[in-house]
């Protein structure tokens, strides 16, 4: 089978759809956080921490749903810590993000040894079982994680555009002082937005771990950072961010397919998503409409 056949096959499509989920959730978490005015590079650590939380809870309880709840809760918790440090403590958001990523990277390895006595991976878990006996296409498109992600993207877009909460959230992101002056509780709004974004990212981390049926040290593999780039490329909007994530996921899937099909050194393909991210950042740079005007600013 030639590389082209594989690319056009259903496997590639299924691969892309599966990989879109963690990217998409993390990017959505980034949109929610940054539209409220809080830069969030802790997405990477959030994915990692929630992946372990999901696996650990699912392994201990034997229930996939408990694992999902744990992953989402863990994501929200990381978001909450980031928010408390940045919004209440006024620590620089990048500093907080770097520190949280470090804690997540070290902490997950620490817990891996504490819980399972291994420095590289957890025992296997069952993951989410659904649609046994369905075709590949149905199983891909009706994946509960994919459907939930899509629903969350839609809900977020609607929330940001139409609801009182969403408008206030955006007001905090565009001009925190003005928002404060008209009576919006900027600190509370931002804390809620970042924690909510963390919860959504946690869903992505859970999907990532369930997809591989285990936790592996460092398994987020830069996806949180790429998702953040997708946020920038999208102009901080939910649907375009999801679309950008689809593109990055397709590239990721392509990379894996080509890895098996061609004689190119594996490293050339491995750097592809990251080079593409840089190119995408350059391509969107001339576009009008930058980040939320109050990104990183505190109310007076």
């Amino acid at each position: 089978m030639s590389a082209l056949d594989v690319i056009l096959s259903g496997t590639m499509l299924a691969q892309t759809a599966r990989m879109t989920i963690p990217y998409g959730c993390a990017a959505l978490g980034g949109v929610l956080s940054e539209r409220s005015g809080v830069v969030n590079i802790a997405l990477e650590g959030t994915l990692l921490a929630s992946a372990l939380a999901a696996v650990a809870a699912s392994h201990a309880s034997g229930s996939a749903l408990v694992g999902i709840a744990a992953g989402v809760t863990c994501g929200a918790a990381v978001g909450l810590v980031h928010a408390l440090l940045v919004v209440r403590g006024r620590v620089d958001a990048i500093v907080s993000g770097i520190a949280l990523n470090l804690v997540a990277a070290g902490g997950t390895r620490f817990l891996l040894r504490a819980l399972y006595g291994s420095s590289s991976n957890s025992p296997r878990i069952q993951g989410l079982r659904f649609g046994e006996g369905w075709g590949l296409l149905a199983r891909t498109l009706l994946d509960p994680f994919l459907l939930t992600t899509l629903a969350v993207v839609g809900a977020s877009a609607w929330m940001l555009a139409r609801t009182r909460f969403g408008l206030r959230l955006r007001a905090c992101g565009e001009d925190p002082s003005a928002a404060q002056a008209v009576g919006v509780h900027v600190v509370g709004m931002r804390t809620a937005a970042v924690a909510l974004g963390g919860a959504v990212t946690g869903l992505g981390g859970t999907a990532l771990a369930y997809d591989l049926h285990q936790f592996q040290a460092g398994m987020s593999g830069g996806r949180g950072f790429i998702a953040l780039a997708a946020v920038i490329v999208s102009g901080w909007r939910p649907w375009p961010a999801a679309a950008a994530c689809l593109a990055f996921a397709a590239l990721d899937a392509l990379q894996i397919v080509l890895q098996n099909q061609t004689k190119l050194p594996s490293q050339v393909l491995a750097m592809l998503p990251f080079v593409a991210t840089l190119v995408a950042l350059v391509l969107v740079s001339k576009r009008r409409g930058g980040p939320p005007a109050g990104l990183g600013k505190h109310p007076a």
Partner: protein
Amino acid sequence: MKLTSSRSLPAAVAGLAVGWLAFCVLVWLYGASPRAMAGLVLEGTWGTSYGAGQVLFKATPLLFTGIAVDLALRAGLFNIGAEGQLAVGSLAAGVIGAHLPSGTPALVALPLALAGAMAAGALWALVPALLKGRFGAHEVISTIMMNRIADSAVGLALGAGGLALTGTVRTADVVPGARVARLDTWLPSLKGSAASFALLFGIAGTFLVTESYRRTRFGREIGLIGQNARAMAAEKVPVRARLEQALVVSGAIAGAASLGTVLGYKGYFEEGLGAGAGFGGLAVAILGRGSAVGLVFAALLFGTLQQGGLAVNAFVPKELMDVLTGVVVCAVALADEAIGRHSAMARRTAAETVVS
């Protein structure tokens, strides 16, 4: 948060206190005795002259990457790419060092290898610098992407590029002239530890860089740009060029960290050598911000944590120390901010007292 504010001692003390607390809690949760583990950490680091030497060895690359990150931070730029810049710099140092004629005198070989490492690091930082200056791409994202690309590129150069010895992921040995001598040739009590004279280069570099913040035009300009870029643009300072230059110089310094790893320790480059020092440098810079003494102290602190992690690894996972690093960084940043606000409030109260 002012990125260029000088660090206050109380914030550092608060950070250490929180770090100690986190250490106790984590060790206790793991089921070990915090007191016994703290004893092991002390014994394995400053308790013996070998341990102290190993701390100095671990602190050396951290000091270089720390000043690298600090210089960029001075201009308001987060160079998260020190990791990748160090990787390509180390590769360059290893390759150049290995390809020199074997009799090359140290006065020629060492500067050549160092220059190669710095050039490679600078080149790796040039990409995010240009993306920032010409296209406004945020340096945090682009430097992170360059780290990932460096991982693959170094592997590619070693493997498919044929720079590694056949069947390995390491370069040939560098010529003796390009090696940095071990400190134990001078201080026999450090015998066996991997600390090298690269540490002294690092300390000299730290004072050189922090002095340049005050004494050179470039240093003063990037500091002022970090505080208020628009005001500097109005003063006809070429802000864009200065930002690009700051990131490139930062990359060059990060590349120089290979003095401690490739030239001072292994004597060759292998894949993964020095990994983690780039991220450690971020912590060093955040703690020691702008002050030579602070940077050296921070590098020693995190060097101690790294070496201490190895000392307790048989009982408690050494990754504990990564967690502590993150916690200390958060605590110091938080305390610094709280103290800054407190003193600003005190100043205001004092001013009001004078007026009334």
